């Protein structure tokens, strides 16, 4: 009974963590952009969903149809006109990563500034699908279950696309070694841009769904960036399945610690788990051995 009451809500919380980390794992793992403006993009999508819901009465799930293509386009433009130059200029992976950190750090403030001008600093929250659902004696909110469902479906679909399709194989090849991929005729720049844009679309999915049950404001992006980073690194950089598993694991551990030990220690548990995984497997749960 208590076990069900830990595992189910834990998975639901973990589903949210996985969802907010999926986009980053593609952007960082494949396109090699350590996107520090990640959390801000997520919050921007949340604001978008909020505006559509409170202004036009559009349900957040319908807003996804609008938010995802827009986010993909914006991210593609960002890549094409700002980040691609850096990727070309950077001599090696290390230099590219440092450049992308610096640039996206700037982008962070641009997005945050725009949100502050448009929405101010105050908190926003609305209710959608805030309906209780009892499964095996454990009560869950439908909106959080929807987030878990999306994380599973989107994560699974992306995983299949990456492993079973030609384009997915090419994307993975870039993640392994961009230079070698170029030698076999893969258009690295175009595909990296696509992966970055696709990651941006996933960020929008996360932001829209999270806005249904979390209170947010323009200053909150960094919270999501941190959580996504922990999940991505723990799962193995660039590994979609790893992000899913790591996210779910984190949710279950946090919930278990909150119920069995002390709710004050959930944050400590997060970092203990993070460090523990990295000590045993420095490249993350599903990470490749360092080359």
């Amino acid at each position: 009974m208590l076990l069900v009451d830990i595992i189910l809500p834990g998975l639901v919380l973990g589903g949210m963590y996985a969802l907010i980390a999926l986009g980053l794992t593609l952007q960082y793992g494949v396109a090699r952009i350590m996107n520090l403006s990640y959390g801000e993009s997520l919050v921007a999508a949340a604001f978008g969903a909020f505006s559509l819901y409170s202004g036009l009465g559009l349900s957040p799930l319908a807003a996804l149809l609008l938010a995802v293509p827009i986010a993909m386009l914006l991210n593609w433009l960002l890549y094409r006109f700002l980040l691609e130059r850096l990727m070309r200029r950077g001599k090696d992976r290390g230099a590219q990563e440092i450049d992308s950190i610096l640039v996206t750090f700037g982008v962070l403030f641009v997005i945050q500034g725009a949100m502050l001008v448009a929405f101010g600093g105050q908190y926003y929250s609305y209710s959608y699908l805030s309906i209780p659902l009892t499964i095996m004696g454990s009560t869950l909110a439908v909106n959080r279950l929807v987030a878990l469902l999306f994380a599973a479906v989107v994560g699974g679909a992306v995983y299949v696309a990456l492993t079973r399709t030609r384009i997915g194989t090419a994307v993975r090849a870039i993640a392994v070694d961009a230079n070698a991929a170029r030698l076999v005729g893969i258009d690295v720049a175009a595909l990296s841009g696509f992966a970055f844009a696709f990651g941006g679309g996933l960020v929008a999915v996360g932001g829209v769904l999270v806005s249904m049950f979390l209170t947010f404001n323009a200053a909150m992006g960094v919270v999501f960036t941190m959580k996504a980073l922990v999940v991505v690194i723990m799962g193995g950089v660039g590994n979609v399945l790893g992000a899913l598993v790591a996210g779910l694991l984190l949710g279950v551990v946090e919930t278990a610690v909150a119920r069995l030990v002390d709710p004050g220690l959930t944050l400590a548990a997060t970092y203990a788990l993070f460090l523990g995984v990295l000590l045993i497997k420095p490249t993350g749960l599903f990470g490749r051995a360092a080359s």
Partner: protein
Amino acid sequence: MFSANRRTLLRATSLVAVATALGSFASTADAQEKIRIGYAISKTGPYAGGAGITTLPNYELWVKDVNAAGGIKLGDKKLAIEVVEYDDRSSSEEAVKAIERLANQDKVDFILPPWSTGLNLAVGPTLNRLGYPHLAVTSVTDKAPELAKRWSNATFWLGTSAQISEGLADLLGKLKSEGKIGANVAMVSVADQFGIELSAAGREAFKKHGFTLTYDKTYPMGAQDLQPLLKDAIASNPDAFVAFSYPPDTIALTEQAQLLKFNPKVFYVGVGTAFPLYKGKFGAGSEGVMGIGGWNADSPQLKDYLARHKAATGKEPDRWASSITYASLQVLQQAIEKVGKLDRAAVAAEIRSGTFDTIIGKVKLKDGLLQEVWSVGQWQSGEFYALAPASLPGARAPVVPKAQWQ
């Protein structure tokens, strides 16, 4: 030939530049045309949410109101307010640096305080050293009496943690003696200075009033799921649920309580309960929820303030510290006018000793502290009415047990 020409040109330009600089300097030194008021406020970072609801809109509203009325009266003329604004990025270092810059470079006449207990305590020593009056409005700390003694320029406006917890325990104690609730209280708090101080004071106050704490836990700031905490609190079967929480947690706890159909006789949540956001999100579901703060919603001055706030900023004020923030600015203005010159020490002394007419009624501080502060409010028919201390004019009777969630 060319070089000589260039030299002449250079000389002429620099002369013009110097002359312009001197001219502008002379004109500002000559006669005070405006009163320069500066502030550094959290426009970004974790404090932006609170500052954006409680503090900044009131600064803007006040400046607008004063300037629309012609300005602050100084002797026989009125001076308009000119604002210098910085973002402290929710960081103590930035806030202190900004205060130094406002005083030394911008040479502002007065400085308005930042938002939050932490930042007010951080800038306190600097404002004291520079000799600026410090209206530490949005700071709840048990150190307030001691600090007010140490910093003669500072004033505190929201009461102490003990006052707030004592007010709540007192109200619950009365309900217990009337047989409306039992002796079991479940308490949760956010693990930061605010939550730690209030829960420590609460523990003592509840014990004094004969309550048993059936559950008493803290949670880290920014926790994304409070359901586990709430489930254990529910399992302890309390008559009253008390949370010293921050706005996102206040919202999350209420939402989870509704989902879990947890409807104790008293449901009390912390910062954010008095925000318009709370009513906006929960609508009829907010009915009967108690929270920190409150105001005398029937007062005509506050009704007028609510309307003006909405007209000027497009949103309703927070029903706790917003009106006090505005009142503190009215006190500042009246103190400047009473002193009749820009003498900061005299203005600070006047704020402490004078009596002022404000939207929250007559304000007279004692030992640098506003004494009559609301500690508990409750949503009743769509308005957040103050309940405690019951001795203050305008206090309403609590509705207990709380209505079923809607």
